[in-house]
């Protein structure tokens, strides 16, 4: 099992969700986050004084998947979240040791 953590542009969330839904992904966790990457921040103006926004708003999508689905999910996210411009985000894949469904106590891939 793998944990996919994708950090994407907030306005692409709906498209990513739809693309994952078409693949049959049964659940995701979404968090509003802030951070910086190569895009860095930008400056804004308030009452004539500039201020720097160092951290830009992004959306973090976390998906636990059984191994056979990982490649398809990564491809779907990449396709749906891309604009071609700086700041499109990143996808991280990490090993997932176990998963437990709290209601039934199932473990492993059945619990996803």
């Amino acid at each position, binding site marked *: 099992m793998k944990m996919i953590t994708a950090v994407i542009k907030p306005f692409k969330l709906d498209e990513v969700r739809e693309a994952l839904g078409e693949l049959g992904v049964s659940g995701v966790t979404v968090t509003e986050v802030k951070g910086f990457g190569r895009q860095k921040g930008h400056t*804004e*103006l*308030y*009452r*004539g*004084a*500039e*201020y720097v926004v160092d951290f830009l708003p992004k959306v973090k999508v976390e998906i636990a998947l059984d191994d056979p689905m990982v490649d398809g999910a990564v491809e779907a996210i990449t396709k749906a979240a891309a604009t071609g411009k700086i700041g499109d985000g990143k996808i991280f894949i990490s090993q997932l040791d176990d998963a437990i469904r709290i209601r039934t106590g199932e473990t492993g891939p059945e619990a996803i």
Partner: protein
Amino acid sequence: MNEIFELQYALDTFYFLICGALVMWMAAGFAMLEAGLVRSKNTTEILTKNIALFAVACTMYMVSGYAIMYGGDYFLSTITGDGATGAEDPATYAPSADFYFQVVFVATAMSIVSGSVAERMKLWAFLAFAVVMTGFIYPMEGSWTWGGNPVFGMYTLGDLGFSDFAGSGIVHMAGASAALAGVLLLGARKGKYGADGSINAIPGANLPMATLGTFILWLGWFGFNGGSVLATASVESANAVAVVFMNTNAAASGGLIGAMLVARILFGKADLTMALNGALAGLVAITAEPSTPTALQATLFGAMGGVLVVFSIVTLDKMKIDDPVGAISVHGVVGLLGLLLVPITNDGSSFSGQLIGAATIFVWVFGASYVVWSILKAVMGIRVSEEEEFSGVDISECGMEAYPEFVSSKS
């Protein structure tokens, strides 16, 4: 004949009271405007200041303020009764209606102070200042202007050609003068000005609230200026009231347009907070004389206020005078402009009279306020600690957040 007089008395009194209620509502406008332009961690405290200062102002004006400004007894002990009979100077409204209309002006002057010292001043030091300001400092200058008394027995402003219809100077510039004294002793918010001389923006947390506050002030101003005609139950006074309403509205519109255009030219973007300040600047500019200009003149006077306020805010910022809501610019700088515009349309006033009046109000209110703030600073301190400022005065002064989250329902 007597019945017609009674009807006039009833109508004028009723009009006075309704206008007073509109001005009272301006306190809500100031509260929303200031709450919108501070950071969310300082919301509860600024709201507490705004509603508490209103109560302090009403109480202190009852105790001593009205007596100092207009004569009569402390604690208003003889104010109930009939204004038409038995009085030395017969009026067409009830004396207690006059008190009610005057007291909401005091609260307005005090409301101006709270925004300028926001986010860093101690709540109780502020309220202690409010006691002196509303019970003594404001009533003294009020007695020299609307009260008609000589300034410390030296000269009488009315004789010199000073005229301030609804209080550009007497209310607004006075409030701003007290605010300026407080800000100078208090210092800027931490982080506002960098060690390298940079000016940092500290954006307000809630612009819908600031906009609503401005709309409320705009509405309340019809009572502020309209009520200052002091009567409505004759053809003459009804006409005057209608002109005042028209010009007040025109000036606010001119002020907003002026400020918005200047902000667009200077900053490249339509800065909403400047537009809001512009509307208020237009209102302050016309307050000294809303009855004699034409509607076009009122619009232009308002636009002058709106343009001036943007430059004033930027200049004060460069001088490192930190005013989170721009109150010193809106009410002080534009208040002075309002006074100086009066002789253009009102033959009964003179530029020299306006200048002497403005100087008298500023020197007295600024000087007296500076002394009171200094005493408070020495005795109890006027500024919260650096750590309290960082975590927000909501917690340190009021013990509660405006928007609590992750709060357990368990005790």
